[in-house]
């Protein structure tokens, strides 16, 4: 049962309704949100690790850059209600990274500089649904937006697109990451409006 807000008319979206999930509004900005200060890691110290497979796998920045990359254009949706359409990134498909490791994990936890983590089922990371992105809008990804590289998982709320990502820890169970432990939904599907615990 909805309570009607007397006199509220609202501003109807200009955007295509089938691209804006429930409860979201469109923005042309690219808002920055984070839980703490922006980390700054030097590229010659940067690594991306995959743990929990048959053997640990590590990529240096150069090794990552040598992998096949692609340009990705996707809509993104933040749990704080803003959505931004047609954002352009460059990155390496997580399929490419996981193919380098023998594993039978069902889940992963992305871990990041600064201590941030987020959990995802493997099926949300594979089959062309996720990337490690290092360019946004044709430029190297800025630190504020998660550079040098972030996870990009556009079909889920953007807190799953972990900034300053440094690797994936493969797991047999779904282990709540940072926001998932602090009130936010375990999976975060914007089309089901899975924002918070209990949704």
């Amino acid at each position: 049962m909805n309570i009607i807000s007397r006199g509220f008319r609202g501003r109807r979206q200009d955007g295509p309704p089938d691209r804006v999930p429930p409860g979201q509004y469109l923005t042309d900005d690219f808002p920055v949100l984070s839980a703490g200060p922006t980390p700054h890691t030097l590229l010659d110290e940067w690594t991306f690790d995959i743990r929990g497979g048959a053997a640990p796998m590590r990529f240096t920045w150069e090794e990552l850059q040598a992998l096949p990359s692609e340009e990705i254009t996707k809509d993104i949706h933040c749990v704080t209600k803003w959505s931004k359409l047609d954002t352009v990134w460059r990155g390496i498909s997580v399929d490419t990274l996981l193919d380098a490791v023998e594993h039978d994990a069902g889940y992963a936890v992305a871990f990041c500089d600064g201590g941030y983590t987020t959990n995802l089922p493997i099926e949300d990371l594979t089959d062309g649904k996720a990337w490690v992105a290092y360019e946004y809008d044709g430029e190297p990804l800025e630190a504020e937006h998660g550079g040098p590289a972030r996870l990009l998982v556009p079909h889920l709320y953007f807190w799953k697109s972990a900034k300053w990502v440094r690797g994936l820890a493969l797991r047999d169970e779904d282990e709540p990451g940072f926001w998932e432990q602090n009130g936010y939904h375990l999976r975060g599907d914007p089309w089901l409006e899975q924002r918070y615990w209990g949704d």
Partner: protein
Amino acid sequence: MKTLELDVDWDGHRAGQHLDVRLTAEDGYQAQRSYSIASAPGERPAITIERLEDGEVSPYLVDELREGDRFEVRGPIGGYFVWDGDEPDPVLLVAGGSGVVPLAAMARHWKRVGSSVPMRLLYSARSWDEVIYRDELDRLGIGVTYTLTREQPERWQGYSRRIDDELLSEVAFPASENPRVYVCGSTHFVDAAADGLVRLGYEPATIRTERFGATG
């Protein structure tokens, strides 16, 4: 800016949390926004709304709403940017503009529970007129320092510039006292404050940030 007191049936909130407001128009169109809770735990939830000129929700909440009107509220939300008062560490609150809202809740909570933890608020605003809750903040008993960045009243003796490392070094607790920090404001403000504190020796993990994008 307008503060709304809400009559809600819930179990209470923690200082620093926010709630979601959902408005429904007669034809079923809905809009949702998040607002930090300004009141202390134990008080009736109150939200302070900044009226954004081209906003969709804030002009309605500030201009149209009358006592007795109803809308849907969800919350309280958030488990990280909170201060419960259980820890002995000193607390540094750094507010940029409307970012003072969740920090005021923490300061009010400090007063309500009679906390003896050292607490300081550094509040940056463009002018004295734009400082909200100002009579109240000065009377809570915490250390309050203002910096007015665009214009200052006559005979103003306080800071009159955007926060920088020197200002922080004069106002913040020494890093050696291991304070917890809560910074809230625009993303530029938060970057300046958080990066500055890290340069002063603060551990990044002790700095909790909440960035207000103006959400309309």
